[in-house]
């Protein structure tokens, strides 16, 4: 069944990219900037939710510092683009064809560096803090997220309290959903593998996992670092879309919002994270008509949801094609 796994993965990826490119050139100009922005935020939130789900839902490590990694990745990639890549591109000139190739390349480099910066921070923070469990880890990651934020706030090089302005606008719909797809693919394949089983074993009973030869610290740190990488990439995408960064966007409330995506969608379900991130991004926009009641309705929905389905929307299960097509053979 998995004989041609890599080939199939490539094929699906190519098809997905083609669909994105077509949508990006037809749908996006048609729906206008407001709906495009909502779509882009959905994509960014999907990356954040799925990457946190790896840490929280699969590895079972309660981290509420995801916004900190997002900030670090965002500011790093923004600084790289602003100080190095954008001047470099300006040197090439701004011809149509040149910028059509150089801008995506610059964005890719910028996002990669942002992701790596966040991953390194994850490694640095993860090694000491992942020895802690449960509530203690939550507090430690909360503190870590705030430290990153405050350090950035006091770094004049990236705008400090004024915020970081004039970041080049390189993020497009296609890029956001390409990376969201990549994030989902990586997490999904990882979880379905022996690595994933080891991670879930750590979540289910850490002592038993260690007694069965699983290096629990290494696996927890790995999940943490990979999750931080994608959070950094998401931060970079946001920076190159809004062209402006301010540390106020990365307070612990942002971290909590991402935790809500994961919990509401169902920890341990990638599909759940995608649905929850989508619905909870659209909901506040859709409720704009309710004006000041908007956030009350949003919060009330969360409460009702948790009372009626505490295991989350998907409750750890994943979407199967066989649900839609009864004849579809379940592997």
């Amino acid at each position, binding site marked *: 069944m998995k004989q041609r796994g890599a080939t199939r993965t490539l094929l699906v990826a190519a098809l997905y990219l083609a669909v994105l490119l077509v949508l990006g050139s037809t749908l996006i100009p048609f729906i206008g900037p407001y709906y495009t922005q909502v779509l882009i935020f959905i994509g960014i939130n999907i990356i954040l939710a799925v990457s946190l789900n790896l840490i929280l839902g699969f590895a079972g490590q309660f981290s509420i510092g995801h916004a900190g990694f997002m900030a670090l990745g965002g500011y790093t990639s923004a600084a790289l683009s602003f100080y190095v890549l954008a001047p470099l591109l300006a040197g090439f000139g701004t011809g149509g064809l040149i910028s059509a190739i150089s801008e995506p390349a610059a964005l890719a480099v910028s996002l990669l560096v942002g992701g790596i910066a966040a991953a390194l921070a994850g490694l640095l923070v993860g090694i000491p803090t992942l020895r802690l469990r449960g509530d203690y880890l939550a507090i430690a990651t909360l503190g870590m997220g705030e430290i990153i934020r405050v350090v950035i706030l006091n770094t004049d090089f990236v705008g400090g309290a004024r915020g970081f302005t004039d970041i080049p606008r390189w993020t497009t719909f296609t890029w956001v959903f390409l990376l969201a797809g990549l994030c989902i693919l*990586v997490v999904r394949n990882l979880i379905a593998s022996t*690595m994933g089983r080891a991670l879930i074993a750590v979540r289910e*009973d850490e002592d038993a996992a260690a007694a069965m030869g699983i290096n*629990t610290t290494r696996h927890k740190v790995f999940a943490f670092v990979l999750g931080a990488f994608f959070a950094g990439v998401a931060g970079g995408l946001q920076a190159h879309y809004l062209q402006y960064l301010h540390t106020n966007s990365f307070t612990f409330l942002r971290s909590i919002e991402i935790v809500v995506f994961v919990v509401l969608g169902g920890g341990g379900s990638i599909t759940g994270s995608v649905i929850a991130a989508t619905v909870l991004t659209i909901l506040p926009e859709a409720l704009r008509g309710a004006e000041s009641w908007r956030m009350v309705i949003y919060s009330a929905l969360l409460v009702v949801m948790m009372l009626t389905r505490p295991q989350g929307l998907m409750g*750890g299960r994943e979407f199967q094609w066989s649900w839609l097509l009864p004849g579809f053979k379940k592997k």
Partner: protein
Amino acid sequence: MNQSPAILEFRNACLAFGGLRAIQNVSLHVGRGELVGLIGPNGAGKTTLFNMATGVYTPDSGEILFEGNGIGSLAPHQINRLGIARTFQNIRLWGQMTVLDNIRAAMHQRVSTALWQVVASGSAHAIDEERLLEEAREFLAYLDLTRFELEYAKNLPYGEQRRLEIARALATHPKLILLDEPAAGMNTGEKVKLMDLIRRLQSERHLTVLLIEHDMKVVMGVCERVAVLDHGEKIAEGRPEEIQRHPQVIEAYLGEAPATT
């Protein structure tokens, strides 16, 4: 004192939790291929001894040797990789994983697929997965758990959960298996099957077994040698029938015999 070379040996091991001396000067020798029982009243330190042998606790003083090498300061996963596996007194399966995945996760340490292979779900990964699946199914068949393959571990009946814990321990390919009260909560029929299984572990899989058990029928039925702990000290050791008559053992279990002249 023992003829067979030791696979596991405690030498004057001591461990204290604050003021409580949980293990005091315990020396114990388990020969390769032996089936040894460890008994004693509640709180005697039996499970603590297991925890020391598997790296959960580090002895304050004394040594623990596995195949002649000190393991006192190693981490649990390192000790398991050397060849010691265990089950737990209060079942500690990975409840939200299927029976099959419980076995496969325990086999994780022996898979070395590169990360990019996993992420791209490449061919090396596929080959490893196939091998893993095949081997995991063999363990399930051996423990008669095949029909529960896709059930969540937490949904299994109690006796099957105990067997799954043993299957999971076997999946790590141990040389020595530590069973912590495997018969607890089992009915008579299940106990007979368990005793048969323990004997088969020794005869068919050439495992050394160290067994904590309160059920004397099980202990006397399968063990070749029995060590008795009380208040963290080893008070007796010998063949089962000797232990049954040992005055200090009777005293530890039943209290001091009334003075008769």
